[in-house]
């Protein structure tokens, strides 16, 4: 249907109109302005990643702890990766939305009448977000030094305590790397939510508003590309934010700087034949 409207090739409004579109205040306000779209996009992303993490992190921890199912984890994750997200979303939409008779909205989460679109897109995004988190959690737990695990056991920790106070903290950098890559994929893919009726997100400007009138200099191509630029910026900001969170919550015992400082000092002391515990002026330099 869209192809018919777009019959002409070339002759699009210039890409130079994009900065102007992005800096026009009226494009940021209103029911389908960029601010609202951005909020919707972030909400779709958060809901999907949080649901996926609630499933994938515990399952990854348990499987990694018992060492069972590694082959299955890799196999399922690879199989899911081969499924085209857009196709899965359309399938779920065509199957699910006719069965949903509820036509109201749910607070600010789901707009009026959009539940039939909201469920398929969120289900698809959750499926998409699970593999990176699951695979990384599993790999992170598997990579924990067996000596650390044995020491924890030797100290009398129960299996659950080993998981929560040794394996999870040590695996955290990898778990978070999985969450990061899930967030990136979900932000990118949530754009196609705009393809379904009644939903927003930054895809609204692209698919519902922009594509049918692509040659329009105001709401056509410049608006589509403008919204797309915001999606890219959102992805970059999310990545930086999560890297910051990682710095904050990963134990300093695991990060290189702490270990290097300690090791280099003891090394130099050892080389100089200085007894342990004696630390003169070298202390300051790291």
């Amino acid at each position, binding site marked *: *249907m*869209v*192809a018919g409207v*777009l019959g*002409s*090739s*070339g002759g*699009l409004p*210039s*890409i130079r109109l*994009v900065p102007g579109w992005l800096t026009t205040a009226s494009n940021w306000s209103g029911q389908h302005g960029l601010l609202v779209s951005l909020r919707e996009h972030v909400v779709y992303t958060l809901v999907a990643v949080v649901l996926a993490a609630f499933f994938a992190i515990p399952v990854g921890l348990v499987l990694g702890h018992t060492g069972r199912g590694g082959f299955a984890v890799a196999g399922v994750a*690879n*199989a899911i*990766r*081969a*499924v*085209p*997200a*857009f*196709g*899965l979303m*359309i*399938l779920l*939409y*065509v*199957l699910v939305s*006719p069965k949903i008779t509820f036509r109201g909205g749910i607070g600010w989460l789901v707009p009026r009448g959009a539940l039939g679109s909201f469920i398929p897109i969120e289900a698809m995004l959750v499926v998409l977000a699970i593999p990176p988190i699951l695979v990384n959690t599993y790999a992170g737990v598997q990579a924990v030094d067996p000596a650390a695990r044995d020491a924890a056991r030797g100290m009398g920790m129960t299996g659950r305590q080993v998981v929560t106070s040794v394996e999870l903290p040590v695996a955290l950098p990898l778990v978070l790397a999985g969450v990061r890559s899930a967030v*990136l994929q979900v*932000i*990118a*893919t949530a*754009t*196609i939510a705009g*393809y379904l009726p009644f939903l927003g997100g930054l*895809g609204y400007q*692209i*698919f519902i508003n922009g*594509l049918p009138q*692509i040659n329009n200099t105001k709401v056509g*191509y410049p608006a*589509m*590309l403008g919204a*797309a*630029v915001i*999606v*890219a910026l959102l*992805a*970059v900001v999310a*990545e930086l934010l999560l890297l910051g969170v990682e710095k904050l919550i990963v134990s300093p015992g695991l990060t290189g700087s702490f270990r290097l400082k300690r090791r280099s000092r003891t090394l130099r002391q050892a080389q100089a034949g200085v007894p342990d515990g004696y630390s003169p002026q070298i202390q300051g330099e790291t």
Partner: protein
Amino acid sequence: MSHVWQYFSDNRSEVFGWLRTTIWLAVVPLVIGLAVSLPIGWFASRFRWAYPPVISFGGLLYTIPSIVIFLALPGILGTGILDPVNVAVALTVYCIALLVRAVADGLASVDRAFLDAASAMGYSTRQRLLAIQLPLAVPAIGAGLRVAAVSNVSLVAVASTLGVSQLGSLFTLGNTTGDTAPIWLGLIMFILLALVIDAVILVGLRAATPWRRALQQ
């Protein structure tokens, strides 16, 4: 399943045409991406100062959602929004972003002792790179290639949201008609295509690393 088969036999010629476009869109960027990544990756592994900027730039490119590149390219290249060339160029960019790192890390991971041995045997620097270092890096590069191939196939489907005609058109068609047959057919064909391309790469990797089989025996 029978109605999916029915749909397939009724629309066979059209579906095969889309399949050809999809294969073209998934494979050509992979080949060009690999060809471009090899020298860049080598450069990043050879000169230590070049590694961080090259790898960060690749990471940044990979952060940009595909739909953004699909949309920006017509404006930059002057192509039409429906032109498959946009998709091919966008996927090539992704392949390079992914493969440069695989090539650089693969080349860097080759044991220094092998390189020293080759030099001692009289290999020139270039001979050593092509005959020793590159073949030994093939498994690492191949792993990157497999990831790029699978992600390429599913990214091709995203392009159908803009109306580019290929197997993803089965999804947009199913959406407008409410018929699940084309959607199932599309999912099956995309997954099969990903599996087949992956298998071809695996066979190629086995052929390119005969010593690995020799070692196992």
